[in-house]
């Protein structure tokens, strides 16, 4: 009898340790993977930008970079083309088919709020007027936050060319960032809306 109880106790402790290891993996291990991918994609993007090409960006490849001054000057992620699970593990992803940076319509980017380096962890801190800088090959697009909303996961109208009005024809150049809400949950989505404020030539990294 005693052996059985002791064995059960040992099993429970072991299970607890494994769960702790799993939490470490989720919160830290997955971020390490994203960091490695970001470094690789960032180098690839810099190299690509030096070449002259009109080819479209392939799924899973770097499309642009995003910087948000409010999150500090080190905040810099490569946006990946695609929002499948594998794409979002590498960093924030652009919804294929939505507008490209600077185009009329809606440039929709989705990212993890927790795990996988959590690029959109602090999206809730953004206020109206905060800048979102999107760098592409030749141009830096400066978007300004106009609104924030919490919606159901089924609210696809936020990704429409005119956000929330799927039928209307777009005239403005919008950006929409989506992430999960609340943190560590999949119950809702947090959405940040922004509009293009200015366009500058991109300053090459030295």
């Amino acid at each position: 009898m005693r052996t059985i109880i002791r064995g059960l106790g040992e099993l429970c402790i072991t299970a607890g340790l494994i769960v702790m290891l799993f939490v470490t993996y989720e919160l830290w291990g997955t971020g390490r993977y994203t960091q490695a991918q970001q470094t690789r994609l960032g180098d690839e993007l810099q190299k690509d930008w030096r070449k002259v090409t009109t080819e479209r960006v392939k799924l899973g490849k770097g499309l642009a970079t995003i910087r948000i001054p409010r999150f500090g000057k080190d905040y810099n992620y490569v946006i990946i083309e695609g929002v499948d699970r594998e794409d979002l593990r590498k960093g924030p992803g652009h919804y294929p088919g939505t507008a490209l940076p600077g185009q009329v319509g809606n440039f929709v980017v989705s990212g993890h709020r927790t795990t996988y380096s959590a690029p959109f962890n602090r999206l809730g801190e953004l206020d109206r007027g905060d800048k979102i800088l999107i760098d592409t090959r030749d141009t830096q697009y400066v978007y300004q936050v106009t609104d924030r909303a919490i919606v159901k996961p089924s609210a696809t109208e936020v990704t429409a060319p005119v956000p929330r009005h799927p039928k209307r024809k777009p005239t403005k150049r919008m950006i929409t960032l989506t992430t999960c809400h609340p943190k560590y949950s999949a119950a809702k989505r947090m959405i940040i809306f922004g509009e293009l404020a200015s366009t500058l030539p991109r300053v090459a990294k030295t």
Partner: protein
Amino acid sequence: MYAWIWRRLPGEWPTKTATALGLVIAVAAVFWYMIFPWLEPKLQFDHGVVDRPTPTSSTIPG
């Protein structure tokens, strides 16, 4: 369970400790590199994307 394993490890206590440590690291590595990556997408609690606008595919986790 652990007492049973301990008794079966060969050698004196320093050898035993070293072997036990090696075993723990090996088990942790199997979990970290094989089991967790497989388990993680199934338990994913962090969905960043809204459902796809296209009706062909339903929820895409993110």
